[in-house]
């Protein structure tokens, strides 16, 4: 199973995600990347992140993404 950081790296290999606290504001993820990320997280962890949770606030940084996964019952 891949880590969240590894999945992010696959989507945008040109960025160092550990260096940012706001992926959207720093231009590292756009709305389509967010969709791609949700699809990858769903497959990787065998979950379905709720559509109403697919909002920029939940994908701001590694901490908010792991918080969202915890809500889905995943300890990432």
């Amino acid at each position, binding site marked *: 199973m891949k880590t969240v950081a590894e999945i992010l790296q696959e989507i945008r290999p040109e960025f160092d995600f550990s260096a940012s606290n706001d992926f959207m504001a720093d231009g590292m993820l756009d709305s*389509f990347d967010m*969709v*791609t990320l*949700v*699809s990858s997280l769903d497959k990787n962890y065998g979950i379905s992140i*709720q*559509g109403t949770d*697919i*909002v*920029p606030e939940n994908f701001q940084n590694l901490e908010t993404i792991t918080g969202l996964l915890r809500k889905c019952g995943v300890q990432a």
Partner: protein
Amino acid sequence: MNFTFQGKRISGVLTVVPANEKQFIEEMKNFDFPEARSLKLKEVMGYDKRRMVAGDVCVSDLAVFGMQNLFERKLLAPEDIDALLLTTQTPDYLMPPTSNIIQGRLGLKRDMLCLDINQACAGFVLGLIQAFMLLEQPSVRKVVLINADVLSRKASPRDRNIYPLIGDAAAITIVERDEDDSPIHASVKMDGSQHAALIIPAGGMRLPSSAETAKLENVGDRNLRSKDHLFMDGSAIFNFVQTEVPPLIEELLAAAGKSADSIDYFLCHQPNRFMLQKLADKMKIPHRKMPHNVVESFGNTSGSTIPMALALNFNGDLLKHQRQVCLAGFGAGLSWAAMLLRLGNLSFCEMIDYP
């Protein structure tokens, strides 16, 4: 707002798609975007193929072609049509109504009603509601509902957010009275305060088209678009659908005294595969009951995606059997609407190509 009807049915569906097919993989080069990310997007969103009109083909061209096909095969008699409803966002002209143009081109009788309905992706359900209301009148025995759009002509080829999604089509649905008085339940909601989330800003009286509105602008994410082009706030629309559509359907099921399990198919408008899968998951509906193959093979064709799904997936089944279906459309307005009805024993349910 809830509606109930009895003694009405859909008796036939014919959809018309342009023969001109575009492949996403060939169009990727139009976007200033890395190929690997486009391919990933293709997989997640279901971008594959779509149909677009060529040149200056208009809504009335697709509609007249489909209607003549029905007349020639004697599946519909011109003199039987008491009302022609056209739901479109891309009329031939600002005035007159395109439904009148279709009537004139087909030489239909003068003693009838033609009406354009300016609605988009909720337009199939909204058009059916209007058709059922007309059938309450003794003088109206048969209504033709046409859902047609050529929105590809309003999408910027340099806008990755819109262009790969959009397809063109027309759907002709015949609606008439029926001896079977099974109840039909429908629910409609509107929120005009969010009208700017899905809009063509220029071309109406608020902002007439001009050289200025035709200028391509960099609108972020490496996309170029003008004010004459279709704009969609994708995140806002996605969240609107995920937040508002499940309760609309759940409330409708409760009002009709039906469970989700008792519904054979949930035929929703098809904006993209990802949105529909999330919608199905949220409502705990098996993906096989909510098809998403129209958008993958034909693009998002606005108000015609539901009848397209009927013609694509159930053409044989619905000629012989009846199914309990839930229809749901959502989009520009914002408007969202759902309907529960028994559908089947159709005289025809087909898709044809416009050459």
